[in-house]
């Protein structure tokens, strides 16, 4: 449905994205993950024909965004970051305006507007000025306008930013409910979001694609070693040297002390459980073992690992 090939965009001499390539299948939810300034918004702006790429190609539904911008825009529902809306319009009037410019047929307009108002939970604020709405409601108005013309493709730039936890869950469920019939690209810098909503993840950092995979695959792929968290009473160096001597331990990293206890993150060889050995090493050394627990590699770690690897 969406194909992006070697997309590059320069702002003056600074590259915003370089050689970005990925593809999204029909009905898929793709997560676009990266820290602020990674190039997520730039990529999305190119896809929505807001600006052309310096080089490379982006296709939406088989149409080139540079050659057929009008047709591409008909297929797309876009929700920009921090949803810019006309603050001096009433929600209902705004949606009516959007339905007109988005070519919703006259006889369907009323029904379609009712539908998105219902979907996005805007019933109570329909008659209110957008400028007076809370951030959460504005965000929903932004989503509502993106959904209005039943677009095949939804491009959502940080859709859950600034919402309270309850609203975030609602919006996520809404987005998940849209999958299947629509192709969705969703950008975020919040990791758990991707794991919860997306089938595939593109991790982008400093304008380059660092990884493309399913959240599950990324997790296993990165579990090349097992990490254990350990806290013990006693001098940090002495404990660390004892821990290093345990067979199977690849690395020991001192963390900041917790409640007066030295704490460490210990990395062990893949597939080897060293917890028992670690415990006895600490106890035999005469230090008081306080805590010992395995660390699961969350998507957050993957993200940090991936993006920091780039920098080294």
């Amino acid at each position, binding site marked *: 449905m969406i194909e992006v090939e070697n997309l590059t965009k320069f702002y003056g001499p600074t590259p915003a994205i370089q050689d970005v390539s990925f593809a999204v299948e029909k009905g898929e939810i793709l997560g676009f993950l990266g820290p602020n300034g990674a190039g997520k918004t730039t990529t999305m702006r190119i896809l929505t024909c807001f600006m052309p790429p310096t080089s490379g190609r982006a296709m939406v539904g088989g149409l080139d965004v540079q050659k057929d911008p009008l047709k591409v825009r008909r297929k797309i529902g876009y929700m920009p970051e921090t949803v810019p809306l006309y603050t001096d*319009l009433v929600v209902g009037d705004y949606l009516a*305006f959007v339905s007109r410019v988005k070519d919703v047929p006259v006889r369907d307009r009323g029904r379609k507007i009712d539908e998105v108002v219902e979907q996005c939970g805007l019933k109570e604020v329909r008659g209110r000025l957008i400028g007076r709405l809370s951030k959460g409601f504005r965000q929903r108005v932004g989503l509502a306008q993106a959904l209005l013309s039943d677009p095949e493709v939804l491009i959502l730039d940080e859709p859950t930013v600034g919402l309270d936890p309850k609203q975030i869950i609602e919006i996520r469920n809404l987005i998940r409910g849209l999958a299947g019939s629509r192709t969705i690209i969703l950008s975020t810098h919040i990791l758990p979001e991707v794991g919860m909503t997306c089938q595939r993840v593109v991790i982008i950092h400093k304008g380059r694609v660092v990884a493309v995979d399913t959240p599950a695959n990324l997790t296993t792929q990165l579990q090349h070693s097992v990490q254990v968290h350990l806290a013990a009473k006693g001098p940090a160096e002495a404990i660390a040297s004892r821990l290093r001597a345990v067979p199977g331990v690849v690395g020991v990293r001192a963390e900041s002390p917790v409640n007066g206890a030295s704490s460490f993150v210990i990395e062990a060889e893949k597939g080897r459980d060293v917890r028992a050995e670690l415990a006895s090493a600490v106890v035999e050394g005469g230090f008081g073992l306080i805590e010992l627990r395995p660390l699961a590699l969350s998507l957050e770690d993957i993200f940090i690992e991936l993006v920091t690897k780039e920098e080294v």
Partner: protein
Amino acid sequence: MKNVAAICRRELSSYFASPVAYVVLMFFLLIAGWFFYAMMSYFSLISMQMMQQQFRGMMPLNVTEAVIRPLFGNLSVVFIFLLPALTMRTFSEEKKSGTIELLLSYPIRDGELVAGKYTATLILLLIMLAATAVYPLFVGWASGWSSPELGPLLSAYLGLLLMGASFLAFGLFASTLTENQIVSFVITLVTLLMFWVLGWAATFVGATAGAVVNHLSFIQHFENFAKGVIDTADLTYYLSFIAFFLFLTLRSLESKNWRA
């Protein structure tokens, strides 16, 4: 066409939802009313004096010449200061608030966008002009419908409309250049003033250059309309001015495609 109407409607509802339209209209009518009152009072004073001095038979004073024409001349100057306030927000505000990004993600052509916004400002201009119709109507009522002469009045209105439309076209263009409304306002105001006073140079730059400068200036062309003369040269001047700056507006919008 549907998109043009939708954008125009949206623009107008923004104008009327914010104080912009009301403030511009109210202050325009305030100053127009003052001009009319001052000129009318002066006119009746002079008429009174002439009657007392038995000049009656010589040359009757003409309301069209003495009140309507200078009134319209003054209104055209007022436009230079007020119309930039209508156009300054058109694109600047959308750029500043970011709404342009969303607007351009809809299937709208740049041409439709410009046409819609321009039409909205034109409608406001028409409302302003229509509101000034009270003054000629008052003169007509007071004179038992013998004056003002309809022909010159309509031609003066046409001149004012064309000039206002030219100002709006330039203002629209200036608004695409910046996301700062004040910058857009100042660019428009000063450029329009320059076009206005350009004619002054005609007297000292020599015959050929003088003719060019005179032709470029707003004053000369407006004078003809105010006199009741509709010359194709003047019509062409205003229409080409409008077309030129609407064209530049479009180009300026497109420039986002190649500007880094």
